[in-house]
């Protein structure tokens, strides 16, 4: 050993620099991408394809795209013609909502953010008061959007675009979780009548396509209702979507309930907790945590399935998109329209997905090994 070797107390040795050739960017490339002839070839082929795909995408969306102009004739760069989005932007956002009333959906959206944040994050100050607001928000939103009592009445036929998609998606999500929990508990109930009802409901709804339910809600329901009784088309679609996703939600949650060991039920029973107490305090917090990925999966599915309402004549994002594509002025601009709609959906769904990951990590209390 060399004479210069210095003695250190255990754990006190300063970090040595990594050996040369095994650190830094060049070493990383060498090790990961060019470690053998075969890998080098694969790397080059991959780079070639990536270059072609990415450059085509960038050309179409950005460098070759037209952002300013008046008519389709201005789009002569070879890429996307985003003018159609700008021209119909308000429709994409609000549908046929009266132009002078746009402040109402805008205000509703801001209030929605205020209402959702305390539900999603439990570490904000004064959460209790904010949650109270979250609880009354649906009524405020309904009043703001539909009007009456001093505000101009806006028929739900005029709601559309992102506004309608959000109304459908958020209502469906908010309604399907509690209904799903009740159905899941009912399906595991000891009471035969409750159990049979829940099983029948879940199996019937799951056995039927959403589009059928929506058609039934919009076209068949009025036939069964007494003369003169008619409720809103949007409300019918909302109920259809909520019931549909709650059936799926029930099965997701039932999976979580089945994953809870019998000992947890017995522990709760032995301490004298009632059925509802043990469900609320012991079983459901654990069961829901286990199935967060499944719950969010159902939410995302539901949010995207709301596009089916365009088939029963509601102008959600897809409905507005169909109108835009059919416009003579912007003929042939379907890719742009659908790309824009896809982007809007992706933002919402990706946010939900990231939130669920964050939540899973936060709720992890070290009991999973």
């Amino acid at each position: 050993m060399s004479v210069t070797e210095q003695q250190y107390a255990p754990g006190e040795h300063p970090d040595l620099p990594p050996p040369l050739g095994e650190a830094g960017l060049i070493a990383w490339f060498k090790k990961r991408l060019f470690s053998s002839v075969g890998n080098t070839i694969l790397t080059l082929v991959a780079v070639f394809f990536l270059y072609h795909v990415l450059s085509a995408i960038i050309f179409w969306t950005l460098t070759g795209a037209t952002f300013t102009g008046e008519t389709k004739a201005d789009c002569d760069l070879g890429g996307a013609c985003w003018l159609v989005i700008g021209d119909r932007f308000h429709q994409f956002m609000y549908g046929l909502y009266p132009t002078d009333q746009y402040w109402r959906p805008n205000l509703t959206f801001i209030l929605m953010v205020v209402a959702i944040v305390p539900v999603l994050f439990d570490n904000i100050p004064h959460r209790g008061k904010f949650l109270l607001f979250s609880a009354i928000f649906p009524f405020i939103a309904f009043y703001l959007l539909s009007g009456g009592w001093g505000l101009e009445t806006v028929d739900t036929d005029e709601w559309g675009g992102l506004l309608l998609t959000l109304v459908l998606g958020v209502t469906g999500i908010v309604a399907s979780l509690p209904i799903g929990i009740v159905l899941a508990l009912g399906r595991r109930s000891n009471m035969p009548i409750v159990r049979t009802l829940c099983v029948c409901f879940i199996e019937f709804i799951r056995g039927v396509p959403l589009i059928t339910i929506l058609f039934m809600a919009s076209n068949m329901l009025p036939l069964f209702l007494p003369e003169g009784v008619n409720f809103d088309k949007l409300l019918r679609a909302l109920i259809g979507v909520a019931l549909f996703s709650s059936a799926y939600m029930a099965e997701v949650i039932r999976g979580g309930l089945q994953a809870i060991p019998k000992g947890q039920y017995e522990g709760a029973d032995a301490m004298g907790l009632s059925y509802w107490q043990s469900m609320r305090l012991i079983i459901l917090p654990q069961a829901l945590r286990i199935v967060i990925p499944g719950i969010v999966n159902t939410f995302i599915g539901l949010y995207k399935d709301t596009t089916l309402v365009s088939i029963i004549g509601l102008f959600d994002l897809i409905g507005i998109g169909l109108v835009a594509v059919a416009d003579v002025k912007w003929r042939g601009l379907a890719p742009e329209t659908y790309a824009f709609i896809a982007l809007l959906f992706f933002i919402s769904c990706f946010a939900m997905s990231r939130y669920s990951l964050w939540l899973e990590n936060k709720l992890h209390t070290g009991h999973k090994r």
Partner: protein
Amino acid sequence: MSNASTNTSKKTDEVAIQLNGVHKWYGQFHVLKNINLNVQRGERIVICGPSGSGKSTLIRCINRLEEHQQGDIIVDNIELTGNLKNIDAIRREVGMCFQHFNLFPHLSVLENCTLAPIWVRKMPKKEAEEIAMHYLERVKIPDQAAKFPGQLSGGQQQRVAIARSLCMNPRIMLFDEPTSALDPEMIAEVLDTMIELAETGMTMLCVTHEMGFARKVADRVIFMDGGEIIEQNEPEEFFNNPQSERTQKFLSQILAH
């Protein structure tokens, strides 16, 4: 026996638990056959026997985790029937510790202990926390109060489970093989806690194979086999002078090691 001196019985004449002609079946299988048992208040009973002998089922019947089909069970002068009110009343008075602890993994140690006092006894949160800390100190883990069960060792978890039951201020404690899932060095810490508990005069029914514990604290040892109580006696007599052949065989097997 030298350690017989530690056996300071707090047994009284008052009856805490009464089982008269209790039968239970799992389908065709007859688990409990005509069980008759009287437990005095303050009495410490150890139940042993080979696996499948019905000893766990027996004590699980006492707080209705299992339902018996025939006979009477009277706990604290309350008869155990299908009546939910009676079941709840009994569960409030009877604490139970399980083989696998059954702590609630999503709640901290302190929350595990305060949950039932707050929700079942309607105790203010602050008072419940004070009581919980008192019992966590008694089982010697007050410093773990903020942790989650998954971060504790098995022995610590079982001691939390004991503290959790004590927070409800039960008059009777049931133990269902509390040390069977633990490593040897952790068994000692849990048994010490149970011995301390026994010294306070708690009525205890304990399914265990810890014969040292039985000798030290039990007022009575019950041997079960095939769903029947084969033999019961004071520990001294039970271990030194077992009457039935099956008891002798069982004792020779478990004491051989």
